């Protein structure tokens, strides 16, 4: 690539500067980086809430937090971790990495992706502003009716929770659609379905689960707000409604949600293991099939959250079977990973350490999960600290540990510098020991009868010692996370400069500079095999530069669109220019959402600015129009009449 073309690309794809410019960015790396940082800040906030809870529970009948504040804090902890950290963080990694891994210049719908981020950001700010003005939700992250209903949930607390759900699931849905279309239509030529990296497979399966699960909780939270503000009777038992309808709607989303959090973590592990074991992943096809199987079965086992509500026993036994069946694909994945590690003596750098930590913790979480699948045992341990231990072993052990592995693994790509190795080891060991000290005693607490979400417990129950141990563990784990922060800040300044491919990995994101330029690749790569970079190196050991695509205009934001199955070049299209309108639409939509808590008239009135902003977003500017005309009539060819018959059939 000659310098002149590189300069032209640089100038065409440059991201706007300045304060206002910040809100106009549309490139997936700038939006993805903000997404990751915002989600991590909410992770820290959720962690602080967890520490406050642990301090209150350290001693029987502690008075550090009163019941009202404790209930708000445990709800904020659950809501922040599940809706503001876990799902957005996994999607953020997808937004940053998937376009790079499939060899595209940008995500499919860049402005829609930016809109999704701003809705998520404004939703998070809205929740925390309401929390600090005393309106923090206090009905749990599941917000069961009738406690969250109009009669027993006075004030606006339950509405704040329900509206936050509307924010986060709108953001998740929008980003999920962008990710799916990116993977289906913008892959580099040659990347057929069986050459897609496993991390990208995981993100696609997650995106599909989001698209099918999130609308259910959107409907549920809308019905709850209608019940509370407009006087409908969805959940009013006296007027034909049913309190269990809320539980069904919530958990039909709830269980896929926890797999939405877990499956990207399996993708991270499948991306890290080949690099550190220096061999191709063992069992690519079984791993992909396991991902898809987990995605499907996840929708069939939500009633195991409701085993104690007296549903007919035949229904419960079906869900027991489904809950146990889902352990098979997960087991297959673990066996394939161990087979990948077999005999390779991997380099134990921080990413690999966190993956090994994942194996240790997730196994305990998975096995207790299988125990919880049985109705009779679940009747004893449901809604006790045994379940708190299980969920933290699968969420922290199963998702946060691989996430930290991913942070260390992709930190050179995002920041251009290597993360500190020694601090990395300290961070890992403190988190591993702190995590196990905090949550392993909770299995015992649950079996000794300590229910969940209690702000205090009587002295004579025999729970004091284990709770104190858990609190100490919590302090150690917090120290571990603090070390991670220190490591990040230190490495940003003094870390050694990381080249294009510090770990000698195989996926395409390592084929460009770190951090990648706003146009990702100097020239679009052509994929030769499943492990793109390794195959290129072996295949072209002798000849010149690896195969690339030419003919994509450098003076316009033009990208190559390829077919779904075999990623053969199909046509070219223009990516939209940076624009302020996605941000303004997000602000208008937030105004509508927040206003509708206080008066139903905010919906029709608020819809006007939203419509205006969306129309302005869509309306092509003169510049965009001229660019499109030029791109479509490139080299004097009139817009190709749709000769190919294949396009006709799709009415």
């Amino acid at each position, binding site marked *: 690539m000659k310098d002149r073309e590189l300069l032209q690309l640089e100038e065409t794809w440059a991201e706007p500067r300045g304060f206002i410019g910040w809100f106009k960015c549309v490139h997936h790396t700038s939006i993805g980086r903000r997404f990751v940082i915002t989600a991590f800040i909410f992770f820290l906030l959720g962690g602080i809430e967890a520490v406050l809870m642990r301090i209150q529970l350290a001693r029987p009948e502690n008075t550090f937090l009163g019941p*009202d504040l404790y209930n708000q804090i445990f709800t904020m902890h659950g809501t922040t971790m599940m809706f503001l950290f876990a799902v957005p963080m996994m999607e953020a990694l997808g937004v940053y990495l998937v376009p790079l891994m499939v060899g595209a210049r940008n995500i499919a719908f860049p402005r829609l992706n930016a809109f999704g981020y701003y809705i998520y950001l404004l939703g998070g700010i809205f929740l925390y502003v*309401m929390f600090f*003005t*005393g*309106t923090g939700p206090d009905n749990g992250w599941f917000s069961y009716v*009738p406690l969250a*209903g*109009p*009669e*027993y949930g*006075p*004030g*606006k*607390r339950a509405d704040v929770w329900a509206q936050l759900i509307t924010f986060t699931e709108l953001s998740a849905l929008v980003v999920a659609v962008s990710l799916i279309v990116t993977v289906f239509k913008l892959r580099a030529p040659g990347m057929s379905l069986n050459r897609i990296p496993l991390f990208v497979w995981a993100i696609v399966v997650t995106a599909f689960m989001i698209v099918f699960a999130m609308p259910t909780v959107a409907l549920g939270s809308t019905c709850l707000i209608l*019940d*509370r*503000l407009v*006087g409908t*009777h969805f959940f*009013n*038992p*006296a*007027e034909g409604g049913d309190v269990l309808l809320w539980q069904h709607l919530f958990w039909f989303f709830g269980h896929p949600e926890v797999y939405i959090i877990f499956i990207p973590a399996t993708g991270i592990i499948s991306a890290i293991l080949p690099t550190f074991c220096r061999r191709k992943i063992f069992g690519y096809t079984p791993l992909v099939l396991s991902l898809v199987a987990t995605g499907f079965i996840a929708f069939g086992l939500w009633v195991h959250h409701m085993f104690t509500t007296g549903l007919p026993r035949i229904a419960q036994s079906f869900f027991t079977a489904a809950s146990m069946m889902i352990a098979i694909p997960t087991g297959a994945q673990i066996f394939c990973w161990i087979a990948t590690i077999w005999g390779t003596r991997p380099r134990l750098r921080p990413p690999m350490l966190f993956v090994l930590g994942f194996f240790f913790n997730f196994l305990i979480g998975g096995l207790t999960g299988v125990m919880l699948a049985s109705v009779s045992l679940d009747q004893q341990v449901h809604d006790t600290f045994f379940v708190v231990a299980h969920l933290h072993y699968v969420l922290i052990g199963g998702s946060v540990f691989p996430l930290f592995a991913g942070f260390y693994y992709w930190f050179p790509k995002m920041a251009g510098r290597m993360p500190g190795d020694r601090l990395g080891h300290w961070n890992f060991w403190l988190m591993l020991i702190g995590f196990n000290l905090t949550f392993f005693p909770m299995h015992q607490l649950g079996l000794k009868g300590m229910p969940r979400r209690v702000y205090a417990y009587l002295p004579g129950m025999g729970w004091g010692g284990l709770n104190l141990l858990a609190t100490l563990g919590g302090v150690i784990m917090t120290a571990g996370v603090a070390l991670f922060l220190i490591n990040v800040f230190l490495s940003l300044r003094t870390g050694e400069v990381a080249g294009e491919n510090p770990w000698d990995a195989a996926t395409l994101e390592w084929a460009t500079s770190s951090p990648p330029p706003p146009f990702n690749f100097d020239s679009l790569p052509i994929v030769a095999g499943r492990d793109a970079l390794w195959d290129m190196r072996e295949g072209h050991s002798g000849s010149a530069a690896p195969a690339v695509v030419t003919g994509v205009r450098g003076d316009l934001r033009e990208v190559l669109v390829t077919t779904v199955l075999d990623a053969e070049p199909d046509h070219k299209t223009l990516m939209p220019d940076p624009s302020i309108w996605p941000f303004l639409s997000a602000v208008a939509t937030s105004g509508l959402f927040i206003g509708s808590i*206080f*008066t139903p008239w905010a919906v029709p009135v608020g819809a006007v600015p939203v419509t205006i902003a969306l129309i302005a977003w869509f309306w092509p500017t003169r510049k965009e129009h001229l660019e499109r005309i030029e791109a479509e009539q490139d080299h004097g060819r009139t817009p190709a009449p749709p000769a190919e018959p294949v396009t006709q059939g799709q009415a």
Partner: protein
Amino acid sequence: MNSVRNIIGVALITLALASCERERRRFNEVPPGATANDAVRQSVLQPGAPQPNQHLKSVYEDNAWAVSEGKRLYESFNCVGCHAHGGGGIGPALMDEKWVYGDQPENVFSTIIEGRPNGMPSFRAKITNQQAWEVVAYVRSMSGQLAKDVSPSRDDDMNIKTPEQSKEKEQPVTKAAEHPK
């Protein structure tokens, strides 16, 4: 430009304070004027120029939890028996604009504590002052006197009347001279 910023700042602070107050859970604070206040005159007919009552702002009127407690007590003390859900029956309607013994919080408080002729029992010593002030706040919300975001929504029972939250604010009229219903 900074005047606009000031206005927005002030608006946000007042909003924050309002929502702070609306959401506070006052478990054991006894409200001001909780002592039996017998300085309340029922009638506007007084020798000389009529002196207005010493108006008393009950703190429960901005507190959503206290008003919902008032609603719970309104049902468990069987006020429903005579006043129904505000529509009235044996007792007068509480959701309309007509008030015989005054609509101000201190008037309603003394009506509950003193009792009234034609059937209103006296609840002196039968309910604590905190409970009485909570019921007062709820009774005033039935005719829409309270802010919309403080008044309670519908309850999980048969849907008899519009929730206090969506009740239009009535302009109270004290018909002391008129023959009480």
